[in-house]
């Protein structure tokens, strides 16, 4: 009996809970309130989708959308009426589509974000390596300047110095390619979203910031051009010219994105500053490259005249070859004058087309069609420039004269014989 008494409160509690539960089940809710609740939850989910920053967040939103769908499925007809001209199914489908789009977009952003993070590390290591090379080239340059060693040792120092600069340029080109691969094709909305993530990753510092990297590369290259003049060859300047061209090309394509992402609060100023520095670098490296080319030609006694640009260089080459071809056509060439052709032919084939060929093409110093055109002109010149031998004409003339002499002698002897017979 006592046991039974112990169970009574528990039983009552269970009955009360059951009744409350049943009551909740039966309590009728306002249809309007149900519609408002749906609209509120829908709006919250829509906002969550729009504000989601990661694919993981979107995944959890998908679960919430499924739960919303399950919760309101039994009220579909009511909601169709309440949401007219929209429908319940249409709204849920729209929300799912929105979440799908966001997921797709965030996947791209996430991929880009990973690339940006990897690039930041890469930049950091490149900067360290470039700094080491820079210090090595500085030491070599100082050693060359202060050298009192033998010519052979000095030549070795210069070779090492040039090699070091070449490595530096290779690294810069590799880095530029990485930058291009990371930032190309970014849409403005993706940039805005990536920008938030970049800021949160604290890439504002100089070491991992591509904008600072680009600016430092430009400054360092301009310093090299200002400081080094005696030790570098035309080939070095051609390579530097190619680096500048590639740098400018990539900057023109991704500069806007990089300035927006890393230019703090002044992207326009950053872009303008780098544009201006690139222009200055272009001016300096072009001048040095053309001056070096001119000096080389002068040294090899090839007088192309003045040129300061790609187009000017092509025109000078074309005029020179055509002029020389015409001159060869007008007068009989001797083997001494043929040496002029050979000097140019050596410059054209062994330097422009072979040794410097890669840089000439990459830097578009000459285009392929320009090279083909000059090639054709050079072949014409070669035909005209070959020194001719006079032995054959002389022999021919002598033979002709001998034949004529013989004919005259023969004719005379016949005439003599004729007159003696008559007598």
């Amino acid at each position, binding site marked *: 009996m006592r046991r039974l008494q112990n169970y009574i409160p528990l039983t009552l509690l269970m009955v009360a809970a059951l*009744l*409350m539960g*049943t*009551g909740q089940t*039966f*309590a*009728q*809710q*306002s*249809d*309007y*309130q149900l*519609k408002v609740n749906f609209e509120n939850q829908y709006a919250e989910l829509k906002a969550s989708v729009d504000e989601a920053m990661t694919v993981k967040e979107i995944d959890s939103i998908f679960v919430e959308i499924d739960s919303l769908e399950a919760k309101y499925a039994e009220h579909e007809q*009511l909601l169709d*009426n*309440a949401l*007219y001209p929209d429908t319940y199914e249409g709204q849920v489908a729209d929300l799912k589509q929105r979440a799908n789009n966001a997921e797709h977009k965030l996947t791209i952003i996430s991929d880009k974000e990973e690339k940006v993070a990897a690039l930041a590390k890469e930049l950091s290591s490149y900067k360290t390596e470039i700094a080491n090379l820079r210090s090595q080239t500085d030491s070599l340059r100082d050693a060359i300047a202060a050298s009192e060693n033998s010519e052979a040792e000095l030549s070795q120092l210069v070779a090492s110095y040039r090699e070091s600069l070449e490595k530096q340029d290779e690294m810069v080109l590799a880095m530029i390619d990485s930058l291009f691969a990371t930032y190309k094709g970014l849409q403005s909305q993706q940039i805005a979203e990536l920008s938030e993530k970049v800021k949160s990753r604290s890439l504002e510092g100089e070491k991992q910031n591509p904008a600072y990297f680009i600016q430092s590369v430009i400054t360092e290259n301009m310093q090299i051009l200002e400081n080094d003049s005696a030790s570098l060859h035309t080939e070095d300047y051609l390579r530097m010219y190619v680096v500048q061209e590639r740098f400018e090309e990539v900057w023109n394509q991704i500069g806007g994105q990089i300035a927006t992402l890393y230019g703090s609060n002044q992207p326009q100023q950053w872009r303008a500053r780098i544009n201006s520095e690139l222009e200055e670098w272009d001016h300096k490296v072009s001048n040095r490259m053309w001056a070096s080319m001119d000096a080389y030609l002068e040294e090899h006694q090839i007088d192309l005249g003045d040129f300061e640009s790609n187009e000017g260089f092509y025109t000078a080459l074309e005029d020179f070859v055509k002029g020389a071809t015409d001159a060869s056509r007008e007068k009989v060439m001797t083997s001494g004058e043929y040496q002029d052709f050979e000097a140019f032919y050596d410059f054209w084939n062994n330097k422009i087309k072979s040794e410097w060929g890669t840089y000439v093409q990459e830097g578009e110093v000459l285009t392929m069609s320009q090279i083909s055109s000059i090639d054709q002109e050079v072949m014409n010149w070669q035909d005209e420039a070959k020194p001719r031998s006079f032995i054959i004409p002389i022999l021919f003339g002598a033979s002709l004269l001998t034949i004529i002499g013989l004919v005259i002698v023969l004719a005379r002897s016949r005439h003599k014989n004729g007159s003696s017979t008559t007598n």
Partner: protein
Amino acid sequence: MEDQKMRPARYLSLFMVTALLFAGTACNKFVVKNVDYSHKIESVLTPDETGSVTDVRHGISFNINPFLKQEFGEDSSHTVDEVRLIRDSKGYYFITANDFKHVYVMEPEKSELKLENRIKVSDSGLNAPAFNMRDTMVQLIQSDSNTVVTLSAKGKIKQEEQS
């Protein structure tokens, strides 16, 4: 004899006139039956500073002030934040609001709503009332008292307490 001959003609004309009258009346009384006016869900309308409410979806606009005067007296300055409105299948509008003790059943007329019935639903004034449409019947839900009152234009049909 002649008078007897005239009678059928008179009857004929009388019949013709009557037939024409019936035909004319029939034309004027063109009626479509079984029209369902019901709203599937109530409208919750917010009065502007002049007391006007507009239900854009169902295309009705009226002033709530006459209802407030009816409900709270001519001199009262009582206002309401929301007005709840639903229409039944017969076309009557059911209107109420917070603190109202009644549901007003209004019949639409030309440019006016005419009171059809004033149904008392609370002694102390409603708290968060709501209308639902269930099986062509209007229901008033009083969530504070968990009461559901089924209404028609004539008055209360059924009142259920929900636990």
